[in-house]
């Protein structure tokens, strides 16, 4: 083992211990109700809400996958992130998030499925939303475990085998999430987010100073093709498809969507809304520029590795690169823990309670929620050992799958004429369409793509959004509301003071 990997292991160990300590404190102040366990009693303030959403959203993408994209294709990915997370997600935060927050507060909703099931008087709809969400979430968690397991193997130079690494991380997350619930997860995310932001800037300034001191300066570190906006992989359709597909998908990811419910006050939501674009600039510009510079200074990226650690090893001491890698590993875990918690809440509240045991007491649900975390995590661990190819593909296309939920959900919240039949058509229809584009054969009709991954440069997931609107509106228009439906549940909760 090298000195660098000792530092990494040390930092990861410290992170785990701090997280456990935070989890224990959170356990002591959390009462045994589902609202407190899953939503921290709807009591998160600006700083915590901002960073827990940010840390949940970003995971290791900021340090690993994102800079790798900038390295391979150019820094235009920064603009995609700006549109996606800075503007679009900010607006979704307001239009979907604020409305969900109001509805959740008035009617006590803990999950998205619960909110829709109540409005449309449909247990089936509630189960469908939860089922679809878990279908995409489960393999996505699996991918995180695979990533973290492999990172641990790399850190220890193979001394810890893959199964033990992934198993250790699973065990840690189960214990920690089962104990702490949302409050502990959010607190840890905040520490994690502040650490990540700080270390990114230290790394960025360090590398920039080193490069600026060389003959070519900063300009020399950008290859000619990277300076011009667009070109290569970056077509307008590609950039817009990525930004729209991911932003919309993120808003329906259980661990992000559930954060729409947790703000303590309107003031918190207002502040978060306004600070959001600044955070996007502060984090992504330095992280992705490093990826682009690494290409310009001629560093090679071997298959299966990440460019930021390679760049840091070139320009900064080994211990510092190790610190960043450990931070990324911690980021990976802090995203997974939120996913486990939300996955468990969807299962217990929207599947177990309505379909299996409607009379479960709060106490029982509390225990079950914690057991659910363990079952979910252990099953995903099993999956990460077997690595079935089709499940891996589901995980890697999860953003598109979640995005398909958004049009029916937005219509349900904003359009009174939406009917239960319209919701079923919009959700089931788009899921079937999107799955067909991922797994099915390509079908064209007279040169026009019908089932394909790309429609004149636009991604299938974006085409699915339009389809979702058409199906939900169309079917709602020709059906009458079921007698169990109750549109006024939403309207009454939304009256301005």
């Amino acid at each position, binding site marked *: 083992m090298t000195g660098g990997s000792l530092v990494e292991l040390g930092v990861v160990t410290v992170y785990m211990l701090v997280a456990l300590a935070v989890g224990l404190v959170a356990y002591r102040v959390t009462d045994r109700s589902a609202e407190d366990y899953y939503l921290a009693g709807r009591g998160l303030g600006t700083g915590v809400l901002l960073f827990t959403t940010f840390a949940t959203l970003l995971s290791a993408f900021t340090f690993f996958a994102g800079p790798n994209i900038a390295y391979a294709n150019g820094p235009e990915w920064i*603009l995609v992130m700006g549109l996606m997370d800075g*503007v679009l997600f900010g607006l979704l935060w307001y239009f979907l998030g604020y409305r969900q927050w109001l509805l959740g507060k008035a009617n006590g909703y803990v999950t998205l499925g619960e909110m829709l099931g109540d409005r449309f008087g449909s247990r089936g709809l509630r189960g469908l939303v939860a089922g679809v969400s878990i279908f995409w979430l489960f393999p996505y968690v699996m991918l995180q475990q695979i990533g973290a397991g492999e990172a641990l193997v790399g850190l220890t130079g193979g001394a810890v085998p893959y199964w033990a690494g992934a198993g250790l991380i699973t065990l840690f997350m189960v214990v920690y999430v089962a104990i702490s619930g949302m409050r502990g997860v959010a607190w840890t995310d905040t520490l994690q987010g502040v650490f990540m932001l700080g270390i990114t800037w230290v790394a960025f300034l360090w590398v920039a100073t080193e490069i600026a001191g060389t003959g070519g300066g900063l*300009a020399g*570190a950008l290859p000619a093709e990277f*300076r011009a906006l*667009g070109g290569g992989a970056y077509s307008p359709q590609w950039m817009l498809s990525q930004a729209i597909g991911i932003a919309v998908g993120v808003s329906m990811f259980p661990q992000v969507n559930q954060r729409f419910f947790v703000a303590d006050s309107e003031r918190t939501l207002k502040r978060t809304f306004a600070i959001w674009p600044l955070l996007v*600039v502060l984090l992504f510009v330095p992280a992705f520029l490093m990826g682009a510079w690494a290409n310009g200074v001629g560093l090679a990226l071997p298959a299966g590795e990440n460019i930021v650690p390679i760049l840091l090893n070139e320009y900064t001491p080994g211990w510092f690169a190790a610190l960043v890698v450990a931070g990324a590993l911690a980021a990976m875990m802090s995203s997974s823990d939120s996913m486990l918690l939300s996955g468990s809440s969807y299962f217990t509240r929207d599947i177990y309670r309505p379909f299996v045991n409607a009379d479960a007491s709060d106490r029982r649900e509390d225990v079950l929620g914690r057991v659910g975390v363990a079952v979910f995590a252990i099953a995903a661990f099993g999956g990460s050992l077997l690595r079935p190819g089709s499940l891996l593909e589901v995980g890697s296309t999860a953003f598109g799958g979640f995005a398909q939920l958004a049009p029916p959900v937005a219509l349900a919240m904003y359009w009174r004429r939406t009917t239960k039949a319209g919701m079923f058509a919009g959700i089931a229809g788009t899921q079937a369409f999107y799955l067909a584009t991922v797994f099915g054969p390509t079908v064209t009709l007279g040169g026009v793509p019908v089932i394909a991954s790309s429609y004149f440069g636009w991604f299938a997931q974006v085409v699915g959004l339009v389809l979702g609107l058409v199906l939900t509106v169309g079917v709602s228009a020709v059906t009458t509301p079921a007698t169990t439906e109750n549109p006024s549940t939403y309207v009454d909760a*939304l009256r301005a003071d």
Partner: protein
Amino acid sequence: MVSRSALAWAACFAVLLALAIPWFLWRSDTLVAGLPVWLWWHVAWMGVTAAAFAAFARRDWGLFVEVGQR
């Protein structure tokens, strides 16, 4: 009847979205202080977006979302 401030904010949000990627700089490779000019646009635009969001939150929060407010 849709109010004037609703129209103004809808237009503002549309412009924020439309120019988050500076299409008018497409294929421009001008560098400023060693970085592409479009990257500086991005930094400034996120600042503008944050300012617009803050102004909206202060003046017209609730518009479009709360029922009964126009």
